């Protein structure tokens, strides 16, 4: 018998999760734009509801198009399965709500997307879940912030906006020593640049709106389970290890040895919170993932050219890209991100807020908007937009200067991007 071989990443990007449509042979994944599914008979209906048979009942809980997407991202990440959610925020909330309730505590990196920070810092405390924020680079701080009621450690693989590289193996080790799981937001890296489960993370989510899609036309989130965390051995997760009155006294770890988390997240989280993905959205994200390896390689290649150009410009004070030796996580990035550090980064412009405004308004190819990970190049000036309420001191605490500009490098001809930036940099420095 020949040596066993798994299908490789590029092949899985195109095929994982889908068999050609059995009725018509459609090669593309059909959009099952339906709320519900006709039962064969009363017994099949009852057994589907009671999880005695697998299948679809109602599209808030599962849908055949979404299921292809869920399998595909699980395959690419090396997980056991996934759940498609309405947005990255919905995926993050689903993870947290599945694991804990009031009285619980999270330790999270300081370097987070603003939406994630809002959820943890302002909204979840109202529901009794508190978060301690720590420097993503300070392993002692991660360890020291863990309390008896801590239930989760959370960070971004590449932190927003300074591109802090999360020491996934180091933080995972701290989490596991405390019998806790590590959840990471892998949006900026995608499985093409990093597979966090291979490094020790237990759960991850994506804003699939970004690089996974690439086209910038849908909002979606994906929550993936590595299947590695031993909830029973931890003893800290009664939602997974004790009978659940909301589903016939089901004990989820007894029910599923490796997918208890996903089972509860789907059977409770999607059922009760209802932040499901539209099947049409799932279809669009699948179209994006088909070309993920090609796009990510080009994103990184273009970004390197842009970074090289900016590093030679007098109007640029500093560039926060981990491939540069000046970045504090350069060594870690070389180890954890050998294929590249993504296509989103920030740089500081001389001249503060006025220069930032002039720079943005002079760009022609870059689009000024609040998103990242599009096939088209994007730009935003945090001090005048996403973080406009902050004074300079507060901005500094968040790692943002008055002249900080965030770029998301797209797939255009890199010479056009460089020429666009060159023109805007000159304009920014005119008084």
């Amino acid at each position, binding site marked *: *018998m020949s040596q*066993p*071989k*798994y*299908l490789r990443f590029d092949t899985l990007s195109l*095929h*994982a*999760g*889908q*068999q050609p449509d059995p009725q018509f042979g459609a090669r593309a994944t059909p959009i099952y734009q339906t709320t519900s599914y006709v039962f064969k008979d009363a017994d099949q209906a009852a*057994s589907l509801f*009671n*999880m*005695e*048979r*697998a*299948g*679809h009942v109602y599209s808030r*809980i*599962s*849908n*055949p198009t*979404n*299921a*292809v997407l*869920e*399998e*595909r991202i*699980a*395959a690419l990440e*090396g*997980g*056991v*399965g*996934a*759940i*498609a959610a309405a947005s990255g925020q919905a995926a993050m909330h689903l993870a947290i709500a599945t694991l804990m309730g009031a009285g619980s505590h999270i330790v999270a990196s300081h370097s987070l997307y603003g939406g994630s920070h809002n959820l943890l810092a302002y909204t979840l405390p109202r529901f009794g879940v508190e978060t301690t924020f720590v420097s993503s680079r300070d392993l002692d701080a991660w360890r020291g912030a863990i309390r008896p009621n801590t239930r989760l450690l959370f960070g971004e693989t590449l932190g927003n906006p300074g591109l802090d590289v999360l020491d996934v193996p180091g933080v995972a080790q701290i989490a596991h020593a405390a019998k806790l799981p590590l959840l990471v937001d892998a949006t900026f890296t995608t499985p093409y640049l990093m597979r966090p489960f291979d490094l020790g993370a237990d759960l991850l989510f994506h804003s699939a709106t970004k690089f996974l899609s690439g086209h910038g036309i849908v909002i979606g989130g994906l929550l993936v389970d*590595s*299947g*590695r965390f*031993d909830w029973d051995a931890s003893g800290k997760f009664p939602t997974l290890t004790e*009978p659940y009155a909301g589903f*016939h*006294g*089901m*004990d989820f770890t*007894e*029910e*599923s*040895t*490796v*997918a208890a988390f*996903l089972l509860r997240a*789907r059977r409770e989280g999607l059922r009760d919170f209802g932040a499901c993905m539209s099947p049409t959205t799932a279809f669009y994200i699948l179209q994006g993932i088909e070309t993920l390896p090609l796009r990510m390689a080009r994103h990184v290649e273009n970004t390197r050219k842009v970074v090289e150009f900016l590093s030679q410009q007098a109007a640029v004070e500093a560039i926060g890209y981990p491939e540069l030796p000046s970045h504090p996580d350069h060594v870690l990035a070389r180890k954890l991100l050998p294929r590249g550090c993504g296509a989103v980064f920030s740089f500081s412009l001389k001249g503060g807020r006025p220069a930032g405004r002039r720079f943005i308004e002079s760009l022609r190819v870059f689009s000024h908007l609040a998103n990242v990970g599009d096939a088209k190049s994007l730009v935003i000036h945090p001090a005048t937009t996403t973080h406009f309420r902050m004074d300079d001191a507060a901005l500094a605490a968040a790692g943002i200067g008055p002249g900080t500009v965030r770029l998301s490098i797209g797939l255009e001809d890199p010479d056009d991007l460089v020429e666009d930036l060159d023109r805007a940099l000159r304009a920014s420095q005119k008084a």
Partner: protein
Amino acid sequence: MELNVSGKKAYAYTAGRALESNRPTVVFVHGAANDHSAFLLQSRYFAYHGYNALALDLPGHGRSEGPSLGTVGEMGDWIAAVLDAASIERAALVGHSMGSLAALECAARHPARARALALIGTAWPMSVGDALLEAAREDRHAAFDMVNVWGHSGAAQVGGNTVPGMWMTGAYLRLLERSKPQVFHTDLKACKDYSDGPASAAKVSCPALFILGSRDVMTPPRNAKTLQSAIAGARTIMLDGAGHSLMAERPDAVLEALIAFLE
């Protein structure tokens, strides 16, 4: 539920339901380095359709206390001991792969305890290649990779899981990785060393069913012929295109076959 079997803790999944003495019982026996969850859907169905369902964790597997058993014969005796511990007189025995041999041995050694016998993804001899056995002996991950790839049809390795959102080979790999050191090797060696297949099959007096996958390369259907011909009146259901992981690859087809057989 937890049972005390010969002084050791044994676990059986019952879908959270208490056993009832007036119900017929179905016992499910998993394969090498697996646990009760291999039969999750099928056992849950029977538990909610008038049966006592016991999906076992063999000793040293899942939640059952070790050590794992070194021979198929010991596994067959252990299943009978589980029935004793659960105060069950007779049961239908459903086994997959190594579990099918264990169920066969139970039916042969303890004929009064077996109401019916279903052998899924089975073969005799159940040959195990030297490369796989050696990798398992050394607790190398390659052993899991081998059975993960060989244990699923080509189609199943692409996906399209009946269970929404689950990546079949990813989940199976994690299940294998949860097995304790040396358990996989002990199981594989027990399969390889099992020599009593034809003699034990000839002793089976209860109705028997074979459920086989036409694309199974771990236990190819042609390797089930010795057992099929040795059990008088045995029936066979061939699942076209399915590999070795039949309960995962074709959960409904396996369930329908078992329903028709047991009811």
